């Protein structure tokens, strides 16, 4: 019996995915130390499904591991359900730590809240939102604080921040934005010297990849509490897409020769081949969907 075009297309799609699975090896990450601290790599601005991200938490965790991340914050816009689901998934099994969060989204500001237990009302000034985040034991980070946002203009509001994004994936395509967030960080540091320098990808459903910009954390313990404490104490460095760390010079010095491993792509040729094969399989399914044998 001759196989139909549809069956061949389905086989090509599944075959491509199978090749991708076989080529997908995620090496173990070595624990790194710098002085008295463990050095962890984090991305605290990641969106997931269900919501405004493409990947569900269980897939996100593998992607975080491929991205060379030890911890991620799942921060969907104005809801924390997905983040809490991610934290629950993370508590069951090995892999990068996933922390519940929210991108508190207000026309005047966007704020990353990590380590929260329930959603924070976005219909309030930034200072009020930070009060809610802190009351829940979380940390508040100014998200992409460019000139179009005015919610953090007051020095008293800047003083409440635990961190601010100093490296963001968009800064690699927009020089003005890059200058804006650098200027914001400098202004915040003047009134809040311990503000944490944060690097984030703001990953949703398209490139750039998760962890494109990232945060190095100097933690005392490799736990959720250890991560939050490092951010509260400002023991972080923001790392841009070229791997250049920025923030507290003494931490850059402490990092010294320690170079956390970045994104791992052990078989790029096989990855691309499997992706192309799957694409052609899916295309074939569309073409042959209506054909009757």
């Amino acid at each position, binding site marked *: 019996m001759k196989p139909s075009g549809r069956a061949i297309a389905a086989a090509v799609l599944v075959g491509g995915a199978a090749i991708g699975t076989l080529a997908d090896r995620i090496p173990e990450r070595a624990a790194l130390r710098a002085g008295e601290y463990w050095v962890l790599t984090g991305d605290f601005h990641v969106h997931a499904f269900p*919501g405004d991200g493409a990947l*569900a938490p269980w897939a996100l965790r593998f992607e975080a591991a491929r991205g060379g991340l030890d911890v991620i914050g799942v921060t969907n816009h104005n809801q924390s359900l997905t983040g809490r689901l991610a934290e629950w998934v993370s508590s069951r099994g090995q892999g990068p730590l996933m922390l519940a969060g929210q991108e508190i989204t207000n026309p005047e500001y966007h704020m990353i809240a990590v380590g929260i237990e329930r959603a924070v009302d976005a219909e309030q000034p930034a200072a009020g939102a930070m009060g809610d985040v802190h009351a829940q034991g979380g940390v508040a980070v100014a998200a992409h604080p460019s000139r179009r946002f005015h919610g953090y203009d007051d020095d008293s509001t800047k003083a409440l921040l635990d961190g601010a994004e100093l490296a963001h994936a968009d800064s690699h395509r927009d020089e003005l934005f890059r200058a804006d967030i650098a200027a914001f960080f400098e202004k915040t540091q003047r009134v809040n010297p311990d503000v944490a320098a944060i690097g984030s990808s703001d990953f949703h459903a*398209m490139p750039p990849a998760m962890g494109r910009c990232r945060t190095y954390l100097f933690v005392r313990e490799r736990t959720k509490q250890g991560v939050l404490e490092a951010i509260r104490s400002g023991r972080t460095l923001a790392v841009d897409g070229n791997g250049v760390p920025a923030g507290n010079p003494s931490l850059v010095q402490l990092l010294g020769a320690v170079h956390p491993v970045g994104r791992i792509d052990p078989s790029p040729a096989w990855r691309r081949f499997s*992706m192309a094969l799957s694409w052609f399989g899916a295309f074939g399914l569309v073409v042959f969907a209506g054909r009757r044998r």
Partner: protein
Amino acid sequence: MLRRPVIVALVIGSVVPIMAVQRMTLGLLVASTISFSFVCIIQLAVATALIGFVRSRRVPAPRAIDLWFAGHVPYSAWLLVMAAVIANLPFAALDLLIASAVIPAAWTAVVVAAFCRNVLGTGRAGARWLAFAHIAAIWGLGFELVALSAGGWFQITRSFTQLFT
């Protein structure tokens, strides 16, 4: 009856990992197909309601539902093309995605109008109205979902302002 809905779900499930992480594994394929199958479930619900409501239908309901999903070809093709393009870009191309969506929307309007005439047995005017209602419903629901997940309608209006300035 479910052959084409399953194919649509598989196409969406393939496109999502290619676009998002430029990688395909069995785990990603299964997870994305299941996650985004809500799109097919909504379409199936709309199709069942519409096909059940129209009495002048010329084919049995299961065949009509199968043909309804044949009308997903424009969006499936568009998704596949966009996935191939976006997977090779260094940055998210939301503006390209939104602007290019006009093509499958217009193509789908033609397909839906033909479906209404040939399958549901409506007249030309009725088919045009139903096609218009379909576009309004799909885009309205789509934007509502995006607004809901992006934090509010102000995010949409801001994106459009940036797109056109």
